[in-house]
């Protein structure tokens, strides 16, 4: 079953076609990876899909609904969530509060009850806190529940972003280079985490340079180059594609 269908999606920045007529479909429950050289348009594509950048042309159909041009917070309400390549942690809060922000749309957040500290807000806060703690344990950050976000090491922050994104209760989770800057042991944890997220029924869109991780978790891979789709297919098909090897993989095709 198709969960996400993208057609003719385009975005230019001052004459540079960052994303150029991109078409693809993602099946529900799949881990769909997007790879390609730096500057291929992967992050721009994520920004388009999450409403942080408005497309010039094309359509984004999410579970049958046209969501093209909706702003980020409205896409979040429709089950789209993401992590960021360059960390976008709320460093002015604790780690737990970061995750609680992710649950924003599921909290009792009307202004007057919040202002008067109504019991419905207190109950909602207690539930949110428990849910956020569970998620921190889920991503392996149980030790950092009470820590300030600024006290977390880099690898933990990457996972904090994933916990925060999961707190939105997403139907599709977009991970932008979750393993960048991590050591092999930490990457293996991310690998296991992505598989668990997919098993829980969340569709995953993954942008990643660590090919070991990509080969291991992906159901389907798309290669972007100069903003265009260069190739699409399973890991075997991508590895065997001479154009992909030429443009991006090079010696990495042999890594396993």
């Amino acid at each position, binding site marked *: 079953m198709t969960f996400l269908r993208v057609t003719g999606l385009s975005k230019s920045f001052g004459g540079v076609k960052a994303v150029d007529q991109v078409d693809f479909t993602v099946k529900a429950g799949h881990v769909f990876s997007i790879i390609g050289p730096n500057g291929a348009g992967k992050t721009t594509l994520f920004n388009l899909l999450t409403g*942080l950048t408005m497309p010039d042309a094309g359509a984004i159909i999410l579970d049958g609904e046209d969501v093209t041009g909706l702003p980020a*917070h409205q896409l979040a309400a429709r089950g789209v969530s993401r992590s960021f390549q360059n960390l*976008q942690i709320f460093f002015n809060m604790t780690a737990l509060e970061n995750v609680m922000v992710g649950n924003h749309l599921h909290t009792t957040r009307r202004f007057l009850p919040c202002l008067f500290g109504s019991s419905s807000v207190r109950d909602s806060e207690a539930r949110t806190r428990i849910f956020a703690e569970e998620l921190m344990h889920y991503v392996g950050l149980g030790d950092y529940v009470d820590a300030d976000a600024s006290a977390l090491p880099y690898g933990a922050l990457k996972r904090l972003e994933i916990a925060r994104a999961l707190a939105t209760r997403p139907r599709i989770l977009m991970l932008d280079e979750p393993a960048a800057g991590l050591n092999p042991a930490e990457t293996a944890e991310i690998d296991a985490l992505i598989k668990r997220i997919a098993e829980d029924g969340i569709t995953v869109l993954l942008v990643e340079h660590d090919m070991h991780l990509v080969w291991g978790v992906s159901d389907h891979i798309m290669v972007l180059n100069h903003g265009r789709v260069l190739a699409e297919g399973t890991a075997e098909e991508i590895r065997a594609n001479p154009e992909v090897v030429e443009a991006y993989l090079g010696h990495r095709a042999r890594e396993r």
Partner: protein
Amino acid sequence: MNGTRLQRYGGLLLLALALALGPLFLQNGFHYNVAILAGLNAIVCIGLNLLIGYAGQISLGHAGFYALGAYASAILPDRFGFHPLGAMITGAVAVGLIAFAVARPILRLKGHYLAMATLGMGIIVSIVLDQEVDITGGPDGMPVGDLSAFGYVVSGNLAWYTLVAILLFITVWLALNLVHSPVGRALKAVHGSEIAAAAMGVDVFHYKVLVFVVSAIIASVAGSIFAHYSGFITPDEGSFIHSIELVTMVVLGGMASITGSIVGAVLLTVLPQMLADFHDYEMIVFGAILMSMMILMPKGLVPTLAGLFKGRRS
């Protein structure tokens, strides 16, 4: 009840105690005057801190909202026969609407541009108050009638002190509720990273406008109370200098700290009174405080001291 809620109610209890015991230490009219002004400044600063410290948006024009509230309480009862409470509420609603109308274009700006836009807005208010001599009395100012409600007229030091103390307590209570709710967390998220906040479902623009309007309404009500208390107001209440004083109080006391706003307001209300001989240099002192805070403890007094204390314990 978890730790943070216990702390919150403990803090409120301490505040109530301090406010109740205050009169024991206030020995004359001058002391009362300083305490009442400090309380009013604290109320404005708490609102302003929601905007600056929590949501990370600057305003250099909040004295304008304060002055609009003050002039509403001066003009409406005098010219149009409003009840003082009706005038206060009308002023607050009008200021809320003005803030809403101004916020929509202004809050799309960031950083220096937002500072400039709010600065301009404040200056426009003070120019209008200065120039509309027929309505506002111009630079000479205008008298304000008594604050009365239910047949009772607020007069005398203790009555005014009690009124301001109650209002301060209510403001602190409401602000604490707000910052410990999803709304407060959303404001902090907007401060931390706008794009991450948006991606988590926080309507960034909505919360910016909301907190701007709320802080403006708080300033307006405090302005109304000040007008009745003082009995005479001038366009100076809305001056750029007053806006800077308010921001300095927030920065000195501490960003994103309700306690900090009270501390900052009290310190910077009391200090100029003690240095009355240096009145001409007041703005230089404020400027120096603002600069040294930015360099030495950018988080402000209360969060920095709290951090030191926390660090020593663990």
